[in-house]
């Protein structure tokens, strides 16, 4: 249990470290990356249920970001595999309910359910990788800044920044509490709801006291309700050009059957 706790904490830190690298992907305006990621996800998700071949070319986007952004592939893939299995859990029912044979691959009839399940898993891979790559190439404060500039209320983005700043502090505090509880619990005693309630209650009270101290400290340093950024990233011509290119390629991948064309072309050659 504590292991899981440590691991999650570790992952937060790793992604934060990755986001501080300095590559051409990292240097882009965060707004560009947020918008491009959203466009990518919406396009991927817009394919009809039984689509597999049309989704494959989209792998080009994460592959390019992995390469250009110098992001370790296995680290991200491991995280994708570890995340919430909800999509797989729901998708696996497709083969159960949809048993109509649809395609034959070397003599074996494959039902529509398996095709749509594969499609769901492919979507899952593409969308999850793109989100993790977004945060690995854009710092969290950068994303908050982008959200602010894209019109999110300032109050929301300010407290999002606070959340991130104190996340590590409070997770460490929670980790200390769990460790202390586990060291005092034998044969599963003391892991029950009663102890949990007082742990969480204490953590909350400490949190409120901490918030008060932070507020006073910030007031004395001239806090007026808004967070300021020192580093200003500008939306340059390259950002605009890149966004346009991404949109054009996404549209082309969405509209044209690239895989089918390549396949037919190859068969014609042989």
């Amino acid at each position, binding site marked *: 249990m504590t292991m899981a706790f440590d691991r999650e904490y570790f992952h937060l830190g790793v992604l934060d470290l990755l986001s501080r690298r300095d590559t051409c992907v990292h240097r882009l305006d965060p707004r560009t990356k947020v918008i491009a990621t*959203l466009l990518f996800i919406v396009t991927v998700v817009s394919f009809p249920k039984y689509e597999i071949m049309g989704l494959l070319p989209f792998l080009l986007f994460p592959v390019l970001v992995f390469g250009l952004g110098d992001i370790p592939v296995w680290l991200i893939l491991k995280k994708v595999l570890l995340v919430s299995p909800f999509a797989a859990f729901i998708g696996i029912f497709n083969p159960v309910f949809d048993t109509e044979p649809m395609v034959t691959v070397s003599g074996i009839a494959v039902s529509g359910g398996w095709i749509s399940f594969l499609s769901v898993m492919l979507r899952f891979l593409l*969308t999850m990788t793109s989100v993790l790559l977004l945060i690995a190439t854009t710092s969290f404060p950068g994303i908050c800044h982008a959200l602010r500039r894209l019109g999110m209320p300032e*109050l929301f983005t300010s407290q999002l920044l*606070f959340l991130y700043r104190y996340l590590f502090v*409070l997770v460490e505090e929670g980790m200390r509490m769990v460790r202390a509880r586990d060291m005092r619990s034998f044969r599963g005693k003391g892991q029950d709801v009663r102890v949990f309630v007082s742990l969480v209650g204490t953590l909350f009270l400490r949190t409120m006291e901490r918030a008060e101290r932070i507020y006073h400290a910030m007031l004395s340093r001239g806090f007026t309700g808004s967070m300021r950024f020192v580093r200003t990233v500008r939306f340059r011509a390259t950002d605009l050009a890149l966004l346009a290119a991404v949109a054009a390629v996404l549209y082309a991948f969405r509209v044209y059957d690239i895989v089918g064309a390549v396949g037919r*072309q190859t068969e014609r050659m042989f």
Partner: protein
Amino acid sequence: MHMADALLSPAVGTTMLAGTLGTVAYCSRKLRENVDEKMIPVMGVTGAFLFAAQMINFTIPGTGSSGHLGGGMLLAVLLGPHAAFLVMASVLTVQALFFADGGLLALGSNVWNLGVYPCFIAYPLIYRPLTRNDGSSGKITIASIVGVVTGLQLGAFSVVLQTVLSGRSELPFVTFLLMMLPIHLAIGLVEGFVTAGVIGYVKAARPEILESVEQSRPLPARVRVKRVAIVFLGVAIVAGGTLSWFASSNPDGLEWSIEKVMGKQELSKQEGRVASVLESVQEKTALLPDYDFRKPAGAQEGAEAGEPESSWPAGKPGRSASGIVGSFLVLGAVLCIGFVVKALRRKQEG
């Protein structure tokens, strides 16, 4: 029960995202009007607290399995519904980005399912009325259990509705509902109990925190409930209208969103023209020539496969064979590009 990008259609995803963004804007404005900027650090640090609290688990009596805190209702009681909603949205944003819980498009659905119901239905319509007269611990327990269960059931129902409307899953509506609701009833009972415990703990140690929440919004309950109900009805009608219209006409998702932007008829005309132009270009460059390809490979494979009961029309087996060839080639090409880019980078760095 995080909704996932992979199960959403663009129409459902963007509708939920729009609803969530609207609620975030509404809550931010409300808070700006009513409270001072002290709330900003309090909310931020409380979000971090919820994160830490969700990582602490406990054993559920009698089952031996472990549970953890969801927290929407708890925050609504401790901070008030508007601040609680924003904190829930923030926590889910961090989870979506760092743990890929659900994804970016699904964030809208997740914040809606886990934030709106506890903060704007369960809290004002159930918890507040039940604990209005006196805040005895028995009343708090009942109110939080009923409140949390209601919030979670609505959330689970919402997940089912979004999944079914998106049409990526084959699960029938009722089957899915019967899977989700009982599980979330059990989770809700446990979480309601825990929530009551934490509220009681805070009330005993620092009663002024809870009192300040109740006093900071001195609006009479009736007005608030009415207002919330009206906002809700509006949002529900808009969302429901959009969704049902979408579900009934059921066009392709991307087309739907393009139609939304450009207007319906213009698009079909324009697209037709663009498509015909591009088609002729294709014919000329012969990258995407005619639909079928010459007999040998595909036809043989089709004959070998020889399965009569396939719903695949004649000639199509060839298409699927070429599709598989094409898939491997495209995958190979994508991987090659990846390796080349990586090698170039290495070289550049020296």
